[in-house]
């Protein structure tokens, strides 16, 4: 090191040099660590997932263009009414950021609700049914039946509905999805032993495609939601999705069981088993809401809009 050559100054004066050198090395070490940690953690995962995420990102961008054309001119920025004492700089940039968002935001999914009194009535009923009947039974079921068994049952039912999803995918022209559903159905029914095991994902790595149903098929044909409707026990739906549910029932093998009570029993058991994995989710949504009815309605509409995009 250069400073060590400076023996002329005497050994006593080399310590500040060493101190600076030490500080520099510590900083350089920290910098290297930050960069390494950052670069290792994010791109390792990002690189693996980027391929998957790109199609989703593209789909996300589509609605942005749509809302961009609907709102021809960007909204005038609201006058920054900054409370006295607040840094003008940060207030200004918040306005800018929000103006961006407003221009780009997918419009909050608006569906007419002409049957609101009926809907609110059944909403209250379903809420009570869930909290006082469904939830306790699901908790009891979960306490008694081990998770592995319940997962297996979930797989079984999911596999059973494969023909319906296959049909929906074909009707939407999603050939790749249909192919995967078919392949998974064959593999899981045979290797997965009647569908209890998800051999397709675990052994052959045929990943589960997003679920398709007849309601989404109708959406892809350009049929609008219609209006919002809440059914007893079944829960929130729309005119279009209700037609979708009926279509699925017709196509499904489960509903062909005679007597009808058997089919109902099987479907109810599937519902119970699925619910055992989602205990607490419904409460999370409604407990934090000011108006649970609107919260659930908006959740359902956003969720279905998103599913239709997948």
């Amino acid at each position, binding site marked *: 090191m250069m400073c060590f050559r400076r023996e002329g100054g005497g050994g006593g004066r080399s310590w500040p040099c060493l101190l600076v050198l030490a500080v520099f090395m510590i900083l350089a070490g920290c910098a290297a660590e930050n960069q390494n940690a950052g670069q290792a953690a994010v791109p390792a995962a990002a690189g693996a997932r980027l391929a998957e995420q790109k199609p989703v990102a593209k789909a996300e961008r589509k609605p942005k263009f749509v809302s961009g054309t609907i709102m021809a001119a960007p909204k005038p920025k609201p006058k920054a009414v900054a409370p006295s004492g607040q840094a003008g700089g940060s207030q200004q940039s918040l306005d800018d950021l929000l103006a961006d968002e407003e221009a780009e935001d997918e419009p909050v999914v608006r569906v007419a609700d002409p049957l609101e009194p009926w809907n609110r009535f059944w909403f209250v009923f379903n809420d009570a049914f869930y909290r006082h009947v469904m939830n306790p039974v699901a908790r009891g079921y979960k306490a008694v039946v081990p998770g592995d068994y319940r*997962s297996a049952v979930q797989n079984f039912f999911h596999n059973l509905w494969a023909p319906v999803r296959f049909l929906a995918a074909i009707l939407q022209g999603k050939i790749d999805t249909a192919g995967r559903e078919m392949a998974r159905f064959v593999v899981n029914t045979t290797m997965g032993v009647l569908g209890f095991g998800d051999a397709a994902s675990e052994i052959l790595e045929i990943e589960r495609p997003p679920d398709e149903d007849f309601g989404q098929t109708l959406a892809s044909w350009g049929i609008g939601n219609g209006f919002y409707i809440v059914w007893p026990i079944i829960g929130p739906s729309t005119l279009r999705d209700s037609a979708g549910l009926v279509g699925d029932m017709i196509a499904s093998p489960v509903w062909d069981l005679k007597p009808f009570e058997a089919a109902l029993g099987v479907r109810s058991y599937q519902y119970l088993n699925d619910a055992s994995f989602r205990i607490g989710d419904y409460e999370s949504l409604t407990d934090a809401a*000011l108006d649970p009815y609107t919260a659930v309605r*908006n959740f359902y509409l956003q969720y279905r809009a998103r599913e239709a995009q997948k």
Partner: protein
Amino acid sequence: MLEAGGHHTPAANQGRRKQMIAKRMIPWLCLVLLLALAWPAAAAPQSATQVLKANLDKFIAILKDPAYKNGAKQKEQDDKIWEIINQVFDFEGVARRALGRNWRRFSPQERKEFSDLFAKLLAKTYIKKIKKGYRDEKVVFTAEEKLRKNKVLVRSKIVRRGGDILVDYNMWNRGQGWRVYDVKVEGVSLVKNYRAQFNDILLNHKPAYLIQRVREKLAEQEKQKHKNQ
């Protein structure tokens, strides 16, 4: 510095001293220069994902800390958690987006009141839920997408049996570091969900009424908390 056959004239001495000073300066200058180059790297800003992950880790550490198992220490734990949440969530931005166009109807004082109350409501509700329901689920950060100059989308998933839950965080940096301004669970935006509720309420009522509703809801949460304790 003894040179062979040194010339010790005063002029030469002065020249030599200058040379010595200059030579002594060089290593210092080099070090200062190197420091200047290293400094920006050392202070390299963390990516949004790193900020989120760091705070999440801190949050989980406090959640699992056995020192807070005692009922009496709950308030302390909540305060610590609130500190972290306030840092990584931009509640002012969340409140403004949740009100959307209705923000203009609020007076400056009402805006502040609303932002504060809404922040408290969100934090208290979700902290309570997480405290009750957390069972060591792992959070995996899957991707970070750049949306605009100062905005990113951080994708993550909560790994749990019965199906993973996809959670996306919209984050922006407006001079206070990366902070979250929207959370999407399974594609459903939290801000939009509240906006739908607030829109409905504000169609037929004044801003003060909404503030009152938020306050009532907050009080309800407090009452429930004390009941459970």
